[in-house]
């Protein structure tokens, strides 16, 4: 499979702190690529740079060969990028449906599509509930529905399982399984069960640098990864 999103030599500092350290990453069309790494490793910052919310100091991000460097967030969304947030960023006064409709209007699509995106994130039954009345798990699913409404080719997921109970986690994994193949995904996740259930490939980010990249079983058995992140092994 060809690379859809190519990140090359990306670097970003926050003051004296290097949060992205010469990162290179190839994300292939249709593939689920997991990005794991300890808290503060720079995973969220990497997603924000891909989306154009944060500007890197150097390096490049290309989608389908097109340099995204100078493009605004809106332009990147139009070219097929979408993200979810680790802490749900939803519109609290609106219904779940209107949250999705807002994303549809943003790309000039019709509100009629909302139903289908809510359904794909298992939120169809909660469409008319105000967001302030949704549970945390439902908000995480809504995050996903909103991102799907942008019709992405490349979906950037920032810890979709964070804060979910076991039942909700299993549900989220099933939802993401259902999306597999429809779009490429970059899955930032701490939940190893989810990572091994979903990922085609895994990259490990530590202190802003990718220390290993490969198939799930390679990563699981990589001594550097075990030392730096996985500790003694699988959980």
């Amino acid at each position, binding site marked *: 499979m060809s690379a859809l999103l190519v990140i090359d030599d990306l670097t970003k500092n926050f003051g004296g702190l290097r949060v992205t350290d010469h990162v290179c990453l190839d994300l292939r069309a249709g593939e689920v690529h997991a990005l794991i790494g300890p808290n503060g490793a720079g995973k969220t910052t990497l997603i924000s740079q891909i989306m154009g*919310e944060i500007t890197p100091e150097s390096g490049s991000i290309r989608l389908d060969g097109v340099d995204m460097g100078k493009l605004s*967030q809106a*332009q990147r969304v139009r070219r097929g990028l*979408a993200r979810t947030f680790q802490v749900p960023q939803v519109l609290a006064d*609106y219904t779940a449906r209107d949250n999705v409709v807002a994303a549809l209007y943003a790309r000039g699509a019709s509100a009629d599509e909302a139903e289908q995106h809510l359904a794909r994130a298992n939120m169809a039954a909660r469409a008319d509930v105000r967001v302030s009345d949704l549970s945390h798990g439902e908000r995480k699913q809504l995050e996903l529905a909103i991102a799907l409404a942008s019709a992405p080719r490349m979906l950037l997921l920032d810890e979709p399982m964070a804060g979910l109970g076991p039942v909700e986690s299993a549900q989220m994994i099933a939802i993401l399984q259902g999306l597999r193949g429809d779009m490429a995904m970059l899955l930032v996740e701490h939940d190893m069960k989810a990572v091994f259930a979903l990922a085609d490939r895994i990259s490990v980010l530590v202190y802003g640098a990718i220390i290993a990249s490969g198939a799930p079983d390679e990563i699981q058995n990589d001594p550097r990864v075990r030392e730096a992140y996985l500790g003694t092994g699988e959980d």
Partner: protein
Amino acid sequence: MRKLIASAIGLALLLAWPFIAEKMGAPALISLFTRMMILGLAASALNIALGFGGLVSLGHAAFYGIGAYAIGISTTHAISGLPFLGLLPGSDQLLVNVLVAMLVSGCAAAIIGALALRTSGIQFIMITLAFAQMIFFLFLALKAYGGDDGLTMRRRNGLFDLNMRDDATFFYVTLGFLLVWLAICARVLHSRFGLLLGGIRQNERRMQAVGVNTFRVKWIAFIISGMGAGLAGALMANLGRFVSLDLMHWTTSGELLIMCVLGGSGTIVGPVLGAFALMGLEATLNTWTEHWQAILGPLLVLMVLAFKGGLARIGGRKS
């Protein structure tokens, strides 16, 4: 449904008001209510930025005042027959002048908005205030158009063959403008644009992430808001046939904010209710005691606390 009935009763009362005031032997109350409607319109205009866009502007007195001056200047030139800047002829027709006023205040809002909207929060409040003060002092220095004496218009602008000198007629003309404005507001806010604007108020980061050019949406809202304030200013200039520099004073911006909050920012009719409540209170307290302001302040605080979400939300979440 209850809201609909309340609105219908309110409208019927307004329609009958000139007759009621005459019967009460207090024709001055007609003009008081005209003023209330005009300020209600101005507050409703501010509310597009404030209530729907979450943009706390403390500079709307500038757009209100610019609208008033635009109409005052146009009328002056129409009456004197000398073109403005040697180029533009004036007009003494209300519809023409209202368009001119909205255009000019809309341009001012476009310029000020383009700069102020690069900031947010307290900074935005301060920048809008600073621009409004600048414009205030500009008109203060503009001796050709009255400076701090203000600008007197010899007569009200004409509208079809109506007798605009009659206060009751002008009352109905104002009511007409108010209703059209509120209908436009409702239309805009229930559109795609309105949904995006509300989304930005709630979470701008989210809206950027789904690809909304949030700056542009806020800018357009700010311009519409400025145009509405200009319309109100144009009507106010006609009401008293006088453009007071005070219209532009920053305290006017503050009053408009209070009207929005009191009546219910983020609702269509709330700011109008707020204007009636605030000005009604002022007028009533004024007749009781000369220290009315000392009573008004605490009273407003109590009212805002008692009617959380504003008068328009009494008995329901939205109007």
